[in-house]
């Protein structure tokens, strides 16, 4: 029973975190057709921003603001400075995001070294939940993640700017006809995606630790999540995130921790081969 409760708590929390990462990834894909392989770097950047801010003596909450802002700026800058200039060459874009992500990893490897770094918890203490103690830190992260996801849903479905994102991912021509400035929408989509990944990086680092390669696993998982949920679909990403989190946790607890992440990758390959549009995605535009 304790095991099942443990599993449930982990899945609830991890699903929310993975959703944050995957939604940004899927939004960028939805509007621009770009697989942003540098998305993992935003996670790392978020964690390290928070680390350096707290090292400078500021509170972790100010660190959280940095973890929100810096990856957003990085992501925005990447679009404005690089992706936009080579947008016509999908292969170049793909390689570019990959190399950019690796460069960020290397920068942190060089500057901070390989050793894992600890970040203070957002809040201390424990709460009894499902007959077991759960750190308040995790509960706060869970609640915050869902607040952010909810705000994003509201933004995308209710506001003009948000609807523009949906419009562009449905039809570039249609969006252009009603006067949507595609370049502008791309830019703030990258901004939002960076911020979401950054905050996920902060949470991940505060439960575990921060290290330069910490963005890789969530990035791989978010491939699986968005492919499962359907590339470009927010709702699909959240559901996909929970499915993947469940499968991963079941594998880890039932079989072996050494197989962490493998189920997700196998799911990814199978879904791509059998049903490339995912569970909730539209037909591929290509």
């Amino acid at each position, binding site marked *: 029973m304790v095991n099942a409760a443990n599993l449930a708590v982990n899945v609830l929390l991890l699903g929310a975190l993975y959703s944050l990462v995957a939604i940004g990834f899927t939004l960028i894909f939805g509007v621009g*057709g770009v*697989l942003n392989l540098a998305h993992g770097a935003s996670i790392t950047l978020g964690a390290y921003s928070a680390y350096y801010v707290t090292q400078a003596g500021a509170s972790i909450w100010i660190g959280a603001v940095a973890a929100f802002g810096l990856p957003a700026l990085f992501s925005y800058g990447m679009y404005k400075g*690089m992706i936009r*200039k*080579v947008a016509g*060459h*999908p*292969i*170049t874009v*793909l*390689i*570019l995001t*990959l*190399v*950019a992500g*690796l*460069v960020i990893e*290397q*920068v942190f*490897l*060089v*500057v901070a070294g390989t050793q894992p770094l600890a970040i203070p918890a957002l809040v201390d203490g424990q709460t009894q939940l499902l007959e077991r103690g759960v750190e308040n830190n995790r509960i706060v992260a869970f609640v915050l993640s869902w607040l952010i996801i909810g705000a994003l849903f509201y933004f995308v479905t209710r506001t003009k700017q948000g609807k523009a994102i949906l419009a562009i991912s449905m039809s570039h021509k249609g969006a252009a006809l009603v006067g949507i400035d595609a370049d502008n929408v791309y830019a703030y989509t990258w901004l939002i995606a960076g911020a979401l990944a950054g905050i996920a990086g902060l949470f991940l680092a505060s439960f575990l630790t921060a290290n330069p390669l910490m963005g890789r696993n969530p990035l*791989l998982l978010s*491939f699986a999540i968005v*492919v499962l949920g359907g590339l470009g679909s927010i709702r699909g990403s959240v559901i996909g995130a929970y499915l993947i989190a469940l499968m991963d946790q079941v594998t880890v607890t039932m079989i*072996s921790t*050494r*197989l962490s*992440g*493998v189920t997700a*990758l*196998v799911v*990814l*390959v199978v879904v*791509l*081969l059998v049903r*490339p549009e995912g569970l909730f995605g539209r037909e*591929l535009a*290509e």
Partner: protein
Amino acid sequence: MAGKTEAETADTVGLTINPLELPRRHQLGLLGLVAFAVLPLAAPVEAIGFISSLTVLQVTGALFFAVYVMTWDVVSGYTGEISFGHALFIGVGAYTSGMLNVHIGLPLVASIPAGVIAASLAGLLIGFPSLRVKGPYFSLITLVTPIILLRVFVYFSDVTGGETGLFGIGTISLDPVTNYYVAFALFVFALAVFLAITRSDAGQILTAIREDEDAVVSVGLNPAKYKLFAFVLSGAIGGLGGALYVHTYAQGVATPSETLGLVLSIELIVATILGGIGTITGAAIGGLFFFLVRTWLRNVEVTIPVLAVPVSELYFLIFGLITLGFLFFLPEGLVPRVLMEAKRLRGRSAADAQPDGGGEP
């Protein structure tokens, strides 16, 4: 230089009759091959003096690496289906041959072909999705397949050696010069095969697939057949390279980071971008150049003052930044650009201008 006879033996392409009548760039290429053929005889290599730490051993590694890069180029550079996990073929070849040799005691003459066959099958296995799944989706599949395999390897680490690698595999030879010639023979073989294929009709069709697959279909050709052919060929030679690498240069040790890891796959792409994507010679030169510069950087003992980090730890960062620069300013790569510039120079002045730096490094 030993002259014409050497050049002819080194050139197994079999297309040449008189090297003196070839275009200048082909002469330079042949000269480069001859230089590689006589390199171990010219010991101490330091006498050549362009990189003081350059040894026969390092060039051996570079030749293997250049073969890997060419196998990537023939699939991804020509057909445009970008593979992010090309190390899969190298790893499958290396580990199949290695495990058969260690666990079953199969002699190398049997285990190496087995590795090649396994890697060809891997090529087929990766090639099939490329027919159905396009562009970034295909890249995703290639990216995760070696990662899955690596995790499975770690899970069954008693058989595969896990992350530390598989030790005690038989070797062809421990003599650096013999190993050098094994690598050189493989390099010339791969170069000849790839040049012959990409300059044939099949190569034209592969390029056409990259440009417009529908156009290929419309003239009554089956792109699937050509793509699968490219994948199987690339897998087979990649697997052969991986197996020979383990049995010679790596001295009987197969490690994930050297034969299967993500970093290797990425390095192959980076080297091709530097040399020239979609050109076999560019890939070969890019591969040699990348490996030697990487080796050199790793041995540099200079420390960057502000960060207090040795340059040797920065090699991947440096290559990453250079690659970003290339993608922006020189997307076609170094070799095509040099050839083009040389042609332009020659066209401008009646005096036959010397193409500078167009040869192998």
